[in-house]
Every structure is written in structure tokens, then in C-alpha cells.
């Protein structure tokens, strides 16, 4: 059997197993085994490539950032962040909805994953929005969409995975995500403001500088975490894994000694969660290197380059990026985590088209966020819908303004690479 046919059969097996509810990790491993078998490759290439993938030093940062986020979460930062967000934007029309978005932006700077924000904060904010007579489907949709801001703002787990797969500087990626992350939050607030005006939603609390000062003082130490991580990486004081270790030390200090909200027993549970949450992702990254290697041997990336050249008739980098993003969004509707599975396959294509990998990294994270609110996976919508006790179709409909908002935002981010690259370029200069 030719290697191309082997690759095709392996990809079909991967999709088939995923459809049959086989875990992602096992479906990828099964596809890799089949591909190796059909193409006559040595089976030991699997553990060899896995070990080489796991050995990527930037990947060590992943469990450390997950741990730091868990420590902050368990240490009780959420109330402080929520109070600060309320003090800043609670006085706007539709105040509670604005607070929801801003809290997600703050959370993004601490946790790096959207589901923690969604399951934790969402479980209280959604019922509270319902109690304040916001439509339940809107409350669920907004919470699902705003949780997507988290992966854009550093520290971000998808960006660590992207850096591990592509070799792009994690510091540059983190910086590149700052402006798009803030703009994405702002765009969601604009949509909320428009809906609030149309539907006559009222403010949640009155604005008071004293309250901003008081809540800001309570929250300020929490913001030290992203400052340590991004600052350390950008100035070049830390490697990504060192930034992770210092973030853990800071979060530990804050929750055990300053806030005194975390016991030793609690610390143990947070450590276990970090092991469990990051373990599967790490192995998926290792396996996806093996899958990528098999598909590259079968010239799948060459085929992808030819296909994009065929589809994009004019010589335009933006249209090529757009074509790749369409592919990423379609894949992201099914694959989660998207980046470690897709990137090893399209990486040679990115290099062939000389696409800026930092810019593309930010676009990929936007694709991840879109995947979380797009069926059939739509994990964010599913979780939020369950919390709100609303049918998913209703949540999907209510999410349309935010969905089209993020699509428009993606198009702008493709057309204006500076949104992502300006900050890292400036810091480099």
C-alpha cells in the first residue's frame, strides 16, 4: 500500500474512532499504529517520537501553569476579581453581563483555560443573571463566549501547546495574545452594550471610585501572576518552565501565606488536579508528533499546499491564511485539543507559504475559541447550557451575536497582523 493511501486510511480511522466516542488520545494512537503498519514503518518509531515530543522543554511549562492557575483558583481569587470587575463596569447598562465578560478577561490572566472559568464562575454567574431577569439562554451564551477570552490572554495553555509544536518563542506568543484578547473582550462588551440598549437592561451597581480603589486593592496581588510570567519571559529573566515554577511559588505564597485560604490537604488536591489535567494533554502532544511525522512521510502537507494554491487563485498571503483558518475552524469543530493534533500536519504548509508563526499562533487560538462554541463539540455552550438548564439549540441561537462577533474579529485579526505582532515586535526592538 502506498504511504498516501496508508495516511488516508489512518485519518479515516481517527475520525471513525472519534465518532464512536473513543478517547482522543487512543484514537490518535490507533491511527498512528495503523499508519505505521500500512506504510511499513518501524513500530518503535511511536515511543521514540512520543518521547521526543514530551522532551520539548517548553512543554514542561504546561503542568506548571496549570498548577499555578489551580492554586490561584483554590486560593480564592475569583471573588476578588469579580468584585473588582463589578466596581469597574457594573454601572454600565446590562452591568452584570459586562461584569461577566470582564471577570473572564481577568481570569484569563490567571488560569489559562476557559473551562475552569466556565465551570467555576459560570455556575454562579449564570443563575445570578437569571435571577436578575436576564434571559437564561443569553446568560449561558454570554458566559460560554466570554470564557473563550481566557485562552487569548497569557498565560494560555493553547499557546504553550502551539509553542511546543512550532518552536515559536512562548514570550512572543504571550505578548501577541494581549491586544487581541483585550479587543475580543471589548468586542463582546460592545455587543452586550448594544443588546442592553435595545432591551433596556439596567446597571448592576452604581459607580464609585472608592469601591474601585477598595476592590482593586483586594485584587491587585492576583495580577502579580501574569506580570511575573509575561514580564519574566519578555525581559528574558526566565525560560518558560522557570516562569511556570515562579508562578507556582507566587501562587503558593499568595494562597497559603497571604490570603491563608489554602490548607495542605487542599494543596494536595490542586497538585493532583494539575497532574490529571496536564497528563493527557502531554501524551496527546507526544502522539501528535508521531501522527505528524507519519503524515509528512506520506506527503500530506505537500497535498495541502497544492490544495490551497488551487483554492486561492490570487497570490495573497491573507487569502492563504484565510483558507488555512477555514480548515482550522472546521477541524476545531471536532478536535479538542485542536493545536497539537492539527499543527504538526499544517506546519510544513505554514513554512512553505512563509506565514508569520506568531501571527498564525494567535489566529489558531481564536480558532480554538470558535470551536468551543460551534457544534458538534461546542463544549463551552454545552457546559453553560447545562448550568443554565437551557436547551443547547436555544443557547446556540442566543450566541449568534457573539459568534458572528468573533468571526468578524478573526477576519480583522487576519487582515491586520499588527494586532498580534506589534507588541512582541516592539518589545524585541
Amino acid at each position, binding site marked *: 500500500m502506498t504511504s498516501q493511501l496508508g495516511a488516508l486510511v489512518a485519518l479515516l480511522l481517527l475520525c471513525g474512532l472519534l465518532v464512536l*466516542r473513543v*478517547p482522543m*488520545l487512543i484514537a490518535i494512537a490507533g491511527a498512528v499504529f495503523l499508519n505505521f503498519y500500512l506504510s511499513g514503518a518501524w513500530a518503535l518509531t511511536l515511543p521514540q517520537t512520543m518521547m521526543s515530543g514530551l522532551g520539548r*522543554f517548553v512543554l514542561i511549562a504546561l503542568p506548571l501553569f496549570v*498548577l499555578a492557575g489551580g492554586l490561584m483558583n483554590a486560593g480564592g481569587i475569583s*471573588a476578588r476579581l469579580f*468584585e473588582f470587575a463589578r466596581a469597574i463596569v457594573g454601572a454600565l447598562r446590562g452591568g452584570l453581563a459586562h461584569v461577566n465578560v470582564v471577570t473572564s478577561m481577568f481570569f484569563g490572566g490567571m488560569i489559562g483555560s476557559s473551562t475552569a472559568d466556565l465551570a467555576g464562575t459560570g455556575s454562579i454567574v449564570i443563575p445570578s443573571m437569571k435571577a436578575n431577569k436576564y434571559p437564561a439562554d443569553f446568560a449561558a451564551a454570554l458566559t460560554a463566549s466570554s470564557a473563550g477570552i481566557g485562552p487569548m490572554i497569557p498565560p494560555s495553555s493553547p499557546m504553550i501547546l502551539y509553542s511546543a509544536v512550532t518552536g515559536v518563542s512562548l514570550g512572543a506568543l504571550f505578548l501577541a495574545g494581549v491586544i487581541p484578547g483585550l479587543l475580543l473582550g471589548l468586542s463582546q462588551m460592545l455587543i452586550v452594550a448594544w443588546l442592553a440598549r435595545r432591551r433596556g437592561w439596567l446597571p448592576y451597581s452604581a459607580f464609585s471610585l472608592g469601591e474601585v480603589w477598595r476592590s482593586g486593592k483586594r485584587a491587585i496581588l492576583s495580577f502579580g501572576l501574569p506580570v511575573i510570567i509575561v514580564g519574566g519571559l519578555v525581559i528574558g529573566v526566565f525560560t518558560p518552565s522557570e516562569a511556570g515554577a515562579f508562578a507556582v*511559588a507566587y501562587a503558593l505564597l499568595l494562597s497559603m501565606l497571604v490570603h491563608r485560604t489554602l490548607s495542605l490537604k487542599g494543596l494536595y*488536591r490542586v497538585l493532583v488536579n494539575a497532574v490529571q489535567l496536564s497528563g493527557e494533554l502531554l501524551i496527546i502532544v507526544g502522539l501528535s508528533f508521531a501522527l505528524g511525522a507519519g503524515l509528512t512521510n506520506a506527503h500530506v502537507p505537500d497535498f495541502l499546499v497544492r490544495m490551497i494554491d488551487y483554492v486561492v487563485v490570487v497570490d495573497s498571503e491573507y487569502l492563504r491564511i484565510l483558507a488555512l483558518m477555514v480548515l482550522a475552524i472546521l477541524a476545531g469543530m471536532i478536535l479538542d*485539543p485542536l493545536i497539537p493534533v492539527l499543527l504538526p500536519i499544517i506546519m510544513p504548509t505554514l513554512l512553505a507559504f512563509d506565514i508569520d508563526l506568531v501571527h498564525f499562533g494567535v489566529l489558531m487560538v481564536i480558532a480554538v475559541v470558535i470551536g468551543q462554541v460551534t457544534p458538534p463539540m461546542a463544549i463551552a455552550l454545552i457546559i453553560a447550557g447545562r448550568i443554565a438548564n437551557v436547551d443547547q439549540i436555544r443557547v446556540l441561537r442566543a450566541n449568534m451575536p457573539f459568534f458572528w462577533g468573533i468571526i468578524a474579529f478573526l477576519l480583522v485579526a487576519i487582515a491586520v497582523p499588527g494586532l498580534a505582532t506589534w507588541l512582541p515586535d516592539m518589545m524585541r526592538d
Partner: protein
Amino acid sequence: MSEQPGPARPPHKTDTDNIAERIEEATRSMELRDPDEGLPLADRLVNRLVEIVGVSVLVAIVAVIFTNAVSRYALNYSFSWAEEMVQMAMPWLAMTGVFLSVRRGTMIRIDYFFDKIPYRFQGAVARFGYAVNVVVLGAMAWVSLDFVRLFGGDVALYVQIPTGWSTSALVFGAAGAAMAYLAEFYREWRDRGRVAGDGDNRR
């Protein structure tokens, strides 16, 4: 979407429904809850043992990286073995995490299509899924064992221990996860009334 939100809150009256405190309570309890609550003692013991291995590895990784960085800046001295040791520990961290995910039904998977299958076929599909899981993980353990046999004797450059100490994590992790699925399959088969995998709480 015709309902209107209630009246504005009175000025300076903060959080009358204690949202902030309730959010803190929810996020903390989500982070701190024991996922094994209610499990039989033997299951709890197995999970606890693997947890201890994973947690020890993670703590060691944090400690080594932190100490190395502090030492580099404070004493202008860095440990040559630090990076290699952390890299060698990573497979153990990853595989203990995978094992715990399998045991607690939190492996990443897609439920959407499965839910569309007629109920009477779901059991058979789930059992097929278990078989695939066991076969693939078993194969992974097998080739990893071969890998360890062939290359596990190579000595790491700085740590000066055989790399098999690191790569054997793939063998133990994959074999352990395969056995965990086998045990789960047995339980499902024994309690054939309900659809397999109902206990899983994630996609």
C-alpha cells in the same frame, strides 16, 4: 428574550446576593473536591497510590526548576543535570495523569455522535470502544516495552542513570490504563442494564 432585567442596584450597596462569595465557594470546591468520594476502598487505594507518584514527580519538577533558577541568579551556578532530570520525569507525570483520567472517566472524547445512536445500539458501540481502548493501549505498552528493552540501557548524559527509568513510564502507564479500561469493561458487562461509560463526566 423579552424579559427585562430587574431594577438597578441601590448606589454603593455591594453584592446583596453575595455573588462574589458564592463564586469563590464554587471555584474552590470545584478545585478541592475529592473525585474518589464514594468509591470502594480498593479503588481509592489504587488511585491514591498513582496520585502520590504523580504529585511527587510534579513537586520534584517544580523544586528542581525553581532551585536551579534561583541558584543561577543568586550564586551564578546552575545544575547541569536539572534540565535532563526534568525531561526524564515528564513521561511519569504524563502517564500518571492519563491513568487517573482513565480511572475517573475524564478522558477527552466526543459524546455528540454517540448520543445520536439509537439507545439499543449504544451498549454494543460502547463495548466496541472499550475493546479498542484496551487493544490500542496494550499495543502501546508492548511497543514501549520493546523500546525500553532496546534503548533503556542507554545512560543519560548528565543524570548518569539509564534512560529506561524514564521511558518505562510509557510501559507502566499504557498497561495500567489498558487494565483500568478492562476493569471498567468488566464492571459494565456485569451491570449490563445501563449504557457503558455513563459515569464519564466529560466529553
